[in-house]
């Protein structure tokens, strides 16, 4: 029983960052109709920024997160302006191929810059865990969870309550009409991509100190983000949030009670089950012809 509770707690904490990853990806797809294959690399980029800022540069741990997010947004905006802005209206396969090219180039550039050695980041939290009854959890993870939650709520606020968010939602619903109403679609696209990238970088910067930082970390993150958005339906932000938590629970319980070697395969098995029994997705209303 205690073991189960511990698993549930771990899953909840993990779910926060998964949701963050999923929201960034689903936002970009929903508004831009682009499958962002560089998402995992932006996650890794966030983690490496965190490393560079905290370890050699000695920046404050909390400030470093903010800077890493800003750099992630900057990189995202650059990718968008450089590669995607010329492909407006291109079919989805074309943008996918371009993004895959960018993914391969970015990943190997990271590998070249940082070599394959895994790096670890010190954190300022007490090393003894927080113990509540039979459960224990490290302070760093508690911090990660609450920051992730804060960022998710912030994103919801941005989309539902601000002027920019309104423009984004309008673009999401009907790009052409939104353009006719005077919304600068180009700017919305750049802003969306920057926002999604910042969220990915934040997830990387948060999890970097929890695990280790390595060039291949992006692949796994991308794979999980894909699983999450498939669960929730591409372009569905609430779906991605729930999907993040569902994936975390399935992984944690699967690793705990079935097989830890297949932990990272759980998400894919979930996708396959969904396709078998509910191909329209858990939360999707429309048919999936992407």
């Amino acid at each position, binding site marked *: 029983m205690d073991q189960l509770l511990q698993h549930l707690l771990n899953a909840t904490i993990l779910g926060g960052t998964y949701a963050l990853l999923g929201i960034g990806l689903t936002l970009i*797809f929903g508004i831009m109709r682009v*499958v962002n294959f560089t998402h995992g690399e932006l996650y890794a980029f966030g983690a490496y920024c965190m490393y560079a800022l905290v370890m050699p540069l000695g920046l404050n741990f909390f400030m470093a997160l903010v800077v890493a997010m800003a750099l992630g947004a900057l990189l995202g905006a650059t990718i968008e302006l450089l*590669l995607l802005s*010329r492909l407006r209206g291109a079919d*989805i*396969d*074309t943008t*996918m*191929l*371009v993004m*895959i*090219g*960018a*993914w*391969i*180039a*970015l*990943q*190997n*550039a990271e*590998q*070249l810059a940082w070599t394959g050695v895994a790096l670890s980041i010190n954190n300022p939290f007490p090393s003894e865990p927080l113990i509540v009854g039979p459960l224990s959890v490290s302070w760093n993870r508690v911090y990660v969870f609450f920051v992730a939650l804060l960022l998710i709520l912030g994103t919801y606020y941005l989309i539902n309550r601000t002027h920019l968010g309104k423009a984004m939602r309008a673009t999401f619903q009907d790009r052409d009409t939104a353009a006719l109403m005077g919304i600068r679609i180009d700017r919305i696209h750049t802003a969306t991509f920057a926002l999604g990238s910042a969220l990915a970088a934040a997830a990387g910067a948060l999890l970097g100190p929890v695990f280790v930082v390595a060039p291949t970390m992006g*692949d796994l993150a991308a*794979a999980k983000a*894909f*699983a999450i*958005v*498939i669960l929730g339906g*591409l372009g569905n932000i609430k779906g991605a949030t729930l999907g993040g938590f569902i994936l975390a629970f399935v992984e944690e319980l699967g690793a705990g009670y079935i*097989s830890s*070697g*297949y932990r*990272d*395969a759980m*998400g*894919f*098995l979930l*996708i*396959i089950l969904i*396709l*078998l029994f509910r*191909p329209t997705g858990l939360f999707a209303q429309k048919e*999936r*012809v*992407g």
Partner: protein
Amino acid sequence: MSRFLPWLLVVLLASVPFWMTDYYVLHIMITTCIFIIAAMSLNLLLGYTGQLSLGHVAFFGIGAYTSALLSLGFQVNVFNVPFGVTPKPVWFAMLMAVIVAGFTGWAIGKLAFRVRGAYFVIVSISFAEVVRMVAVNWVELTQGPMALNNIPALTLGTGEFELSFLRKPSFYSLALAVAVISYIIIARIVNSRAGRAMNALRENESLAMSVGIDVTRYLVIATIVSAAMAGMAGALYTHYIRIVDPDVFLFIYTVTMVIMVITGGKGTLAGPIVGGVIFGFVPEALRAMAIKPEIQWIIYGVLMILIVYFLPRGIVPAIERFWAGQKPGDDEAARSVPGALQK
């Protein structure tokens, strides 16, 4: 004249083992040939049905592992029930590799073609990743990262009439033969009723459906053929390199196949061959210049972007258009590469 050109090329290529004494060049030609087979199989899905299948390396790897495991024999416990296979002849193992890969293609086709577009792409990537994880984790069967070693080479016949494909010249002939057969199979399919149905669904799926084409059926057929062919390429690879580890499932190999197809020209018969030759020799040239593999992959990534921007339909259609411009009224090129000049 140009009707005989392809056959002339085949004869020329077939003569290579008789005069090529440099085994390094022969080795590159063999691996290029294997990759061309894989790229041709991907082209059937990517080019002719228009489905961007990014899990293609899974079929290649399944073929490689099936053939390796059957020729080596294995012993596993499935839910505490022992299950073993004694070593089988290599030709039988390769045949089974094709069948198993084709069957996997059928299952995946049935499953994945419930969705289209971005969903299909993500599902196909996920599938390859699951297969890779099985290869890494099911150590009892696959030896995991320790790899399967000492995979036997293909031999046919016995005693005096034994034909061994251990050495490079003989293996080259085998790979070339498989490539030619694969090409003919794909050309036959593309020019058949099924091929026209695939073209129709690529151009406009709803319209294809409305005129009574069973879209999913043709997609599944294409996937089965494509997967079986990729499985054959994997089986060739495994009995050539004679060692196989879970790295055969790496996404980067799918990317290599995709880049071969789109560079050469997706939806053309010659495209994967042209792309395959370019990207079979480019890595060797880069290696000769002592360039790190990371830089090679960066170059691949950038090339992929540039091709999409500047040569979206690939080299073969571009050459054909150039040719057609030179000689107006000559539709020979159009006939030899159907589907390329339709738009």
